[in-house]
């Protein structure tokens, strides 16, 4: 049996066509649920549910701006993975090598 990741999987989150459209809409600029719903043939509650899946996967974040809640693309998932990996690798490799200087 294959184990799944405990937190939302970003690629799995993108497996739904509406969620891909939402990501594309947000790649232009942050938007409210209503603005997203205006572009899609689905209801506001449905948009909210998709946003929540994208949020759990770390792809979308939200913030309150005045009276509106805006959703924005979190562009950093892979960046975070690779920069953490590279940083830890660099520290460990340098600390375990014999200095030649």
């Amino acid at each position, binding site marked *: 049996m294959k*184990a799944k990741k405990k937190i939302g*999987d970003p690629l799995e989150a993108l497996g739904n066509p509406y969620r*891909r459209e939402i990501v594309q809409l947000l790649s232009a600029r942050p938007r409210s649920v209503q603005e997203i719903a205006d572009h899609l043939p689905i209801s506001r509650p449905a948009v909210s549910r998709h946003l929540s899946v994208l949020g759990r996967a770390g792809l979308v974040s939200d913030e309150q701006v005045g009276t509106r809640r805006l959703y924005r693309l979190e562009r950093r998932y*892979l960046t975070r993975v690779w*920069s*953490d990996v590279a940083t830890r690798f660099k520290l*460990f490799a340098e600390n375990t*090598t014999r200095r030649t200087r």
Partner: protein
Amino acid sequence: MIEPLRIAFDVECSPDHAFETWTSKATAWWPAEHTMSHERGARIVFEPRVGGRIFERTADGHEMEWGEIVEWDPPRRLRYLWHIATEPENATDVSIDFHLAPRGTRIEIEHGGWERLGEIGQVWRDANQAGWDGVLPSYTEAARTRGA
């Protein structure tokens, strides 16, 4: 073809040590939050050959596959199919080159094969690009600070 993501940085050690650290010491340095189990103490194994598996083994013996090695050329180059976040048939490609550099080793990582993810590939890749562009300057800065 969808343009791969690329990252490069310098490490102050020999290519031999860098290659060996990447492939046989990953258990010691791979960040636990980026494993499949998220468990500290999980073993990470790169089987040292073409066709070798890359997998994680948790303390209770559960194995989870991350990918498969397709190029094994120590201490210069390593390439693997990577499916830690996807099904195996949608694996992306990771290649890591270890170049001898004046102060040690220059490591160049390329992460591509996004077209295999179908429609998701371009969106996923674009969603990561902006943040990615910011990675290199922060490394250069970190390397300079450490070297000072």
